[in-house]
């Protein structure tokens, strides 16, 4: 349920679902996202779901805050049956060439590299949202023993395909980008493919990701 709708500037609705981050609240956000999207409401430019917020930006020459707010408050929200997310397998190579921050994590978390990887690969991850850069998934939750803060000084360039950890989340950098997450490996899989206009992002909100560790040779021989 939306707890409160306020305005973000003069051309967006800020729908607040609470402050907690968990799968239940995020599922609710995604349900609203899908329902609103399906209705094709005139004037809406973009709908952005995140952990516990939904931002709806609109064309101020077509509608305005008050009238769109009323529409969203009175919208009928139905459950989408049989629309569980996809399960996607992503291979990662954790060779030292790719695991840029594994040593940092060992010392910050006080556990060994082997243990970090064992804990990381033993879980399935839920995709809360995609964004920041094109196709970039925010996944969670990682094991409690793996939760570290961002780098004090973010990297200017993180290589494409890097897999990072911070707090209870992990991510995949779909493009070379600046960023501050703790990098533990790299995937040879193209997570964002602009030539697929219908579905350019491999992983979407509500999907489940299973990571599989691969060797350097397997990484190099990976063909899509």
């Amino acid at each position, binding site marked *: 349920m939306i707890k409160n709708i306020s305005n973000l500037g003069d051309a967006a609705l800020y729908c607040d679902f609470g402050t907690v981050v968990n799968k239940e609240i995020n599922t609710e956000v995604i349900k609203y996202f899908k329902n609103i999207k399906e209705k094709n409401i005139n004037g809406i430019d973009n709908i952005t779901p995140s952990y516990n917020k939904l931002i709806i930006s609109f064309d101020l020459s077509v509608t305005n805050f008050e009238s769109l707010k009323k529409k969203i408050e009175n919208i009928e929200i139905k459950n989408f049956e049989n629309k569980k997310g996809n399960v996607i397998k992503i291979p990662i190579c954790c060779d030292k060439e790719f695991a840029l921050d594994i040593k940092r994590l060992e010392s910050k978390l006080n556990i060994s590299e082997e243990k970090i990887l064992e804990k990381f690969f033993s879980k399935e991850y839920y995709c809360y949202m995609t964004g*920041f850069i*094109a*196709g970039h998934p925010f996944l969670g939750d990682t094991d409690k023993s793996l939760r570290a803060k961002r780098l004090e000084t973010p990297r200017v360039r993180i290589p494409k395909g890097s897999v990072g950890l911070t707090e209870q989340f992990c991510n995949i950098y779909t493009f070379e980008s600046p960023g501050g997450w703790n990098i533990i490996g790299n995937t040879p899989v193209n997570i*964002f493919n602009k030539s697929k206009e219908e579905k350019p992002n491999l992983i979407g909100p509500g999907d489940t990701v299973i990571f599989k560790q691969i060797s350097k040779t397997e990484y190099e021989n990976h063909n899509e």
Partner: protein
Amino acid sequence: MSKNYFEVIRPGINSTFQDLGRKNLYHIGIPFSGAMDKRNYLLANAIAGNKGNSAIIEFAYQGPILKFKGEKVNFTITGDVNFKITKKNKEVDGCCYQNYKLEEGDILDIISTNRSVYGYLAISGNFDIQLQWNSYSTNIKAQIGSNNGKKLEKNQQIKILDTHSHESKKKLEYLNNKIENIRVIKGTNYNYFSEDSKKFFFTKEFTVSKLSDRMGMRLEGIKIENIVDTNIKSEGIIKGVIQVPTDGNPIIMLSDHGTIGGYPKIGVVISSDYDKLVQIPPGSKIKFKEIKLSDAEMLFKLYEMETANLISKIK
């Protein structure tokens, strides 16, 4: 397809194809993009006599030098721009908001923008470029859109799909007026900041940093002090949002911004002031003025009426 094309002799600093941008893709991380200064985009197309929203070339600071090959094409430049046309035996200094004709071998040199950032080049007709997600806009960060998602490059050709022989004397008397204050609505994390900082934010001047581009405008000045948390749980953002990262220097999100952000939002620039905001060059001073939502909505109506009025004045 016509046989007309441009040869890029110098690409300029950041010359890209733009139109009104692409919608409905924030949820997969693709920003709106589109012409930064929408009014000047619309005026360029209107003076060039294009009916729809054709793609134009947007340039920043220094524009391209283009050599025209083919029969003829008319063009218009908008913004506050220095440019000249070199013909076989003469050189013509160009004026913005006016139509010109180029013939085989003519060279258009877009020298620079004056005390502003962006300028626009529209041809009377259409460039031969590809739509991606219903837009020609180029986003170089995600390599999306026209020209394979890239800026113009030296020696490349820009093919022209079609031209129309538009009444070539059309022009508009218009001066881009400068703005004193940028009007802002309080952001959703306004209360994360100290009382002093909130007061300073709406009274002190900030300087536009050199580290500004189509993604964001960085500001320097008094540091904004956060008293709650310098991170929030990442959430959707829109253009015009003013985030304050840990270092206390505000960043205004512009048209190619990341779609998700994790820094507190002190304010949002109102829609009617966006075109003017993006034209403020690095090194300039900027001041924010707080405004209510209802006033922002009214100012947007005025902005739209002004744009329509300008278009109706083109002769």
